[in-house]
């Protein structure tokens, strides 16, 4: 598996220099554009077939916007999305139609992602109805097979979403995404609205489905443990940019970007003894506004290692000394093994 320089036929999804700005308009009769939310700014990624790319970052870092651009739900400002060798950037709905069958999404909120007025059978059967692949009793049979596959009782075909628990509802969402046998499933925080015990069940279901159907996942989450559990590779986003990207083991074992270090140190540990011995890096301040992001490295106002250079020149994603060729970090002063960032922050604060 190679993330930085992938061989093209192994790659299912390729994102090149993707940019998505949302215009900010003034309020009033004449709505002039007064600025842009730079939700995603110059992101390049690729996801190999049958693998899972985990995308982590805080709320507002642009993860979901990136996912919606890949799914073709919102137009892209610039850049290119290539799926299975086809350029699908800003293509018409008609041209997108065959691709829709191959890219599906699982949504974050199992309560708002299912239409409360439609029965479960109609919700899971909708992909068949839209793409006219099955109708009547064949559709019903297909839906019931899907329900069984994701661990739902097929007899509940005629129920409404309100009659299911959160975990069951998310299974309905998974069944709907699975209906057309897609190649890529974009999971937009699929478990963050669920109880921890239910999270594991849904994650295991996703893993089983990946194994059985050779699915590729773009998995978005803010829970680092969840991402570690499911991903082959991990990308860390901050304010619309990717600051670190690499194989899961390397990013988790030796994070090079100070932001990745801070995120990992803030994650709650299952073992309290281990947590006690750990140094937490507490970042100062809030995430800056994506309408007016900081110059240079976007993380520099909050970075414990920031130098004058950081506010002047934007760091590029590069392989840092001592890292594998697949592990890239956008930082002028990457964190070394054994370096204690927490003390750097503390001395700065005092």
């Amino acid at each position, binding site marked *: 598996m190679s993330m930085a320089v992938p061989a093209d036929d192994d790659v299912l999804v390729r994102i090149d220099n993707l940019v998505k700005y949302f215009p900010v308009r003034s309020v009033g009769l004449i709505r002039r554009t007064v600025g842009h939310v730079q939700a995603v700014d110059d992101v390049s990624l690729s996801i190999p077939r049958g693998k899972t790319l985990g995308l982590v970052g805080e709320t507002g870092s642009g993860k979901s916007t990136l996912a*919606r651009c890949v*799914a073709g*739900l919102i137009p892209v400002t610039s850049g290119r999305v290539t799926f299975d060798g086809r350029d699908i950037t800003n293509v018409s*709905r008609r041209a*997108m*139609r065959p691709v*829709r*069958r191959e*890219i*599906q*999404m699982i*949504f*974050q*909120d199992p309560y*708002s*992602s*299912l*239409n*409360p*007025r*439609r*029965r479960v059978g109609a919700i899971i059967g*909708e*992909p068949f109805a*839209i*793409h006219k692949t099955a109708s009547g009793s064949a559709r019903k049979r297909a839906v019931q097979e899907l329900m069984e596959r994701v661990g739902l*009782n097929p*007899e*509940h075909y*005629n*129920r*409404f979403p*309100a*009659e299911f628990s959160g975990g069951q509802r998310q299974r309905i*969402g998974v069944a*709907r995404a699975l209906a*057309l046998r897609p190649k890529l499933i974009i999971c937009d925080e699929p478990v963050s609205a669920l109880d921890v015990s239910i999270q594991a069940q849904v994650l295991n279901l996703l893993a089983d489905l990946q194994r059985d159907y050779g699915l590729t996942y773009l998995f978005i989450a803010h829970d680092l443990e969840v991402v570690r559990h499911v991903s082959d590779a991990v990308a860390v986003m901050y304010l619309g940019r990717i600051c670190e990207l690499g194989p899961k083991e390397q990013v988790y074992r030796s994070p090079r970007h100070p932001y990745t270090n801070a995120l990992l140190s803030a994650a709650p540990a299952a073992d309290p003894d281990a947590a006690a011995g750990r140094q937490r890096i507490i970042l100062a301040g809030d995430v800056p506004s994506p309408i007016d992001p900081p110059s240079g490295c976007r993380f520099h106002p909050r970075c414990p290692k920031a130098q004058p250079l950081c506010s002047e020149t934007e760091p590029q994603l590069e392989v840092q000394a001592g890292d594998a060729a697949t592990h890239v970090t956008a930082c002028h002063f990457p964190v070394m093994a054994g370096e204690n960032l927490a003390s750097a922050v503390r001395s700065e604060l005092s």
Partner: protein
Amino acid sequence: MSISGIEVGGREAVAAEAVLDVTKVEGRSQWQLTWRRLRQDKVAIASLIIILVMVVLAIAAPAFVAITHHPPNVTYPNQGETAAGNPVPPGTAGFWLGTDGSGRDLFIRILYGARISLFVGFVTTALGAIAGVTIGLIAGYFGGFIDTILARFTDAVLAFPYVVLALALAVVLGPSLIVIIGVISFFSWAAIARIVRGQTLSIKEKEYIEAARSLGAGPFRIMFLDILPNLLAPVLVIATLYIPTAVVFEATLSYLGLGILPPTASWGNILADAQNFYQVAWWYVVFPAAALLITTLAFNLLGDGIRDAMDPRTERIFAAGRARGRRRRGKRQVLADSAAEVSHVMPSVPPAAGS
């Protein structure tokens, strides 16, 4: 062996029962729940029955003609008018509700007036609802320029002094059923469109709409299959409340001589003619006016009932009502108990007086 066999059999029976239960449990749709709540609302059910009776009477009007042998537009100068040429009172010479100013059977004419009134009410509301829902959905879902145009147009229609415009149109185009239906429909879609647009704006941001788009659903599929079912409740309520408005509007136009023209019967033109006779024939005014009042009131009360039944928050009102009923029953019980106690303490009072 036999014991274990029984046990297994028993367990199987239990399992079979469980499976049966599962298949029996079917989700109650919104409509089933609404109907269950509506059934407890006595006023709404009474209104519904009145409306149904009115509809049946209107449909069966020719049957009453067959019974009374009094077609609606035939005058009876001999039996149907007094010597002075005034209407005869109810019950005279087979005229159940008396006659009108021309000696026609008032009951039959009220029934034929109901046909016109209800037809106009239902048709204009249906046309208005279809147009309003379509325009509201398109404006709300597509947004942008289309929304600006449609929303401003809606506001303009709502801002019109519609009675004045309706009168002007009726004068210019000449009074007829088609003109009445057109005019009333034109003024009933706008309020529905505005409500539908507002609801669409909020529903289209829901994740299940995005899910439908990611499945490849087109805009019209999303509008009519995903958004519309969520809007039917408010639309049904407004439509029920619009029917009486349309009925009254039709009566107003006919009363002013700009709607249904005599000799065709309409509640409005019956009332207009009745004005000339109110001093000598009270029935000529009271019965058509009562028909109009009862019909519009029933529709309004039914609309209120449907709105309460569809809004799950009103469950609390019902619950409070039930609790009040329980408390009252409870108090009565306490009173009875205390009465029994009193009678027990004072044996001179007969126990029957306490109860």
